């Protein structure tokens, strides 16, 4: 299937000489939720801004539903809705006026019914005549979302959608994103909350210093890199591991009270039984056992640090 967004060999160097993107190749599939993960300054916002037309691209090619973002910018941009990271708004305007403005700007005829439903879905209908500066931070962010959705886009960019948002609003936002996906909207979100990517995304791309270092199905990523850990709580602390137990995947923590064994959960031979036998042979008594899967966060941290030479 043709990707809904196709990025080929895109780079970007700002006038200051800062190289924000180095040869990005990326395809976004239609109807998926794609999470772009990366530390601050990795190039997430630059990438989004180029696709949306806010920043001039460097070399390379970007197509949105088959339309080149420079040559066929009208067709490309009319399919995109963007919710930027910061809360920009026309403070003195009413919610209704600003949403109506956005719809017109994107070349759609007025449709009061659609906008009414949109504002209701975002719990903004009661506030439609309020001036934006009177609204709370969470509401302002929902106004930004309403503006981005006002022209019924097929693709929605959410740049750090839940930065500085309280837990309840974050849950609501996730709920909304899922509903949009059910309607066939492709969603690209950037985040540095791993929790968010783990909760929401179908696929995850990791960007670091202007390079996409990995793109993978979330499930595959978790499986491939997902290591399991066995934590053994000891009865008596150990000063050091006995010579027979010194190996890479075993470490001693908590002043010797805890033994941590890292293993590959995908394999049949996990080595757990052998380890426990060995502990018994060495006369090391334990009171409890725990096994856990590493989260996306662990994976992400290890990825980013592994490649930072």
């Amino acid at each position, binding site marked *: 299937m043709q990707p809904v967004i196709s990025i080929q060999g895109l780079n970007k160097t*700002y*006038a200051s000489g800062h190289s924000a993107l180095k040869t990005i190749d990326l395809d976004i599939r239609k109807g998926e939720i794609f999470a772009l993960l990366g530390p601050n300054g990795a190039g997430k916002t630059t990438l989004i801004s180029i696709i*949306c*037309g*806010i*920043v*001039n691209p460097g070399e390379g090619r970007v197509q949105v539903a088959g339309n080149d973002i420079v040559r066929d*910018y*009208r*067709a*490309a*941009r*009319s399919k*995109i809705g*963007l919710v*930027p990271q*910061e809360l*920009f*708004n*026309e*403070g*003195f*305007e009413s919610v209704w*006026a600003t949403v*109506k*403005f*956005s*719809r*017109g*700007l*994107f*070349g*759609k*005829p007025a449709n009061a019914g659609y906008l009414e439903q949109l504002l209701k879905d975002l719990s903004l209908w009661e506030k439609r005549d309020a001036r934006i500066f009177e609204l709370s931070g969470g509401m302002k962010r929902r106004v930004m979302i309403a*503006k981005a959705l006002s022209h019924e886009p097929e693709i929605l960019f959410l740049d750090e959608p839940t930065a500085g948002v309280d837990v309840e609003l974050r849950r609501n936002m996730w709920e909304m994103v899922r509903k949009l996906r059910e309607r066939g909207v492709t969603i690209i979100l950037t985040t540095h909350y791993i929790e968010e990517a783990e909760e929401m995304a179908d696929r995850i791309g990791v960007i670091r210093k202007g390079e996409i270092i990995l793109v993978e199905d979330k499930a595959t990523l978790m499986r491939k890199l997902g290591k399991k850990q066995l934590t053994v709580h000891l009865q008596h602390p150990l000063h050091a591991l006995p010579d027979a137990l010194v190996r890479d995947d075993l470490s001693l923590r908590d002043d010797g009270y805890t033994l941590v064994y890292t293993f590959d959960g995908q394999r049949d031979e996990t080595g757990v039984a052998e380890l426990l036998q060995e502990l018994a042979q060495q006369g090391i008594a334990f009171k409890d056992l725990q096994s856990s899967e590493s989260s996306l966060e662990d994976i992400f941290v290890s990825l980013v640090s592994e490649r930072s030479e």
Partner: protein
Amino acid sequence: MNFYAIRAIYLFELARTWRTLLQSIATPVITTSLYFVVFGSAIGSSMNQIQGVSYGAFIVPGLIMLALLTESISNASFGIYMPKYSGTIYEVLSAPVSYLEIVIGYVGAAATKSVILGVVILSTARLFVDFDILHPLWMVAFLLLTAVTFSLFGFIIGIWADGWEKLQIVPALVVTPLTFLGGSFYSIGMLPELWQKITLFNPVVYLISGFRWSFYGVSDVHVGVSLAMTLGFLAVCITLIAWIFRTGYRLKN
């Protein structure tokens, strides 16, 4: 053409005028009325006729021009500077609109405001002094042309400005002096000969002279020259704006 977008920008910008009606319309009208009271009635009553026109009537076209220039520049520069300042410009840049459509929306709204203002001042002036308009069509043409040209100029200033101070500096330091020295309140024939020559470098002289000609049929320079200069300035502004959008100057990185 994305007509919905032009309409959206245009109406959104005009909506700001109605919201700030006092500031947008009332302030310039009051200022101009004060000029009429001071120059037209108080001083004008003891002045001779200029080129066969009473002094009170003589300054009417100049005063309208003065308001038209300053308001066109301030409306248009503010209109585009504000979204740049607040960050909402992201939406316009990410929308499927061409540069031409953006300019038509913003500049059209600013020019509309100044034309409305010009008409309001004209009507106000009629309350103070008696005058006829000899060439009404030309009067309207000069009014529209000047409003559009200087709204374009204001648009350029709004894009160039990266702070509130810069937004004020060109109108205050360049446009207002040029307008005052451009013959709003006098005929340049009243100046010493050297200054008559120097003053011909002031583009505003041609605007006011042409506009005054459409009222009374008298002018400092030939009306054709006035028209040519106005069109020339329009062309310069359009060229500059085309360059701004092609390079993304102060809009896109």
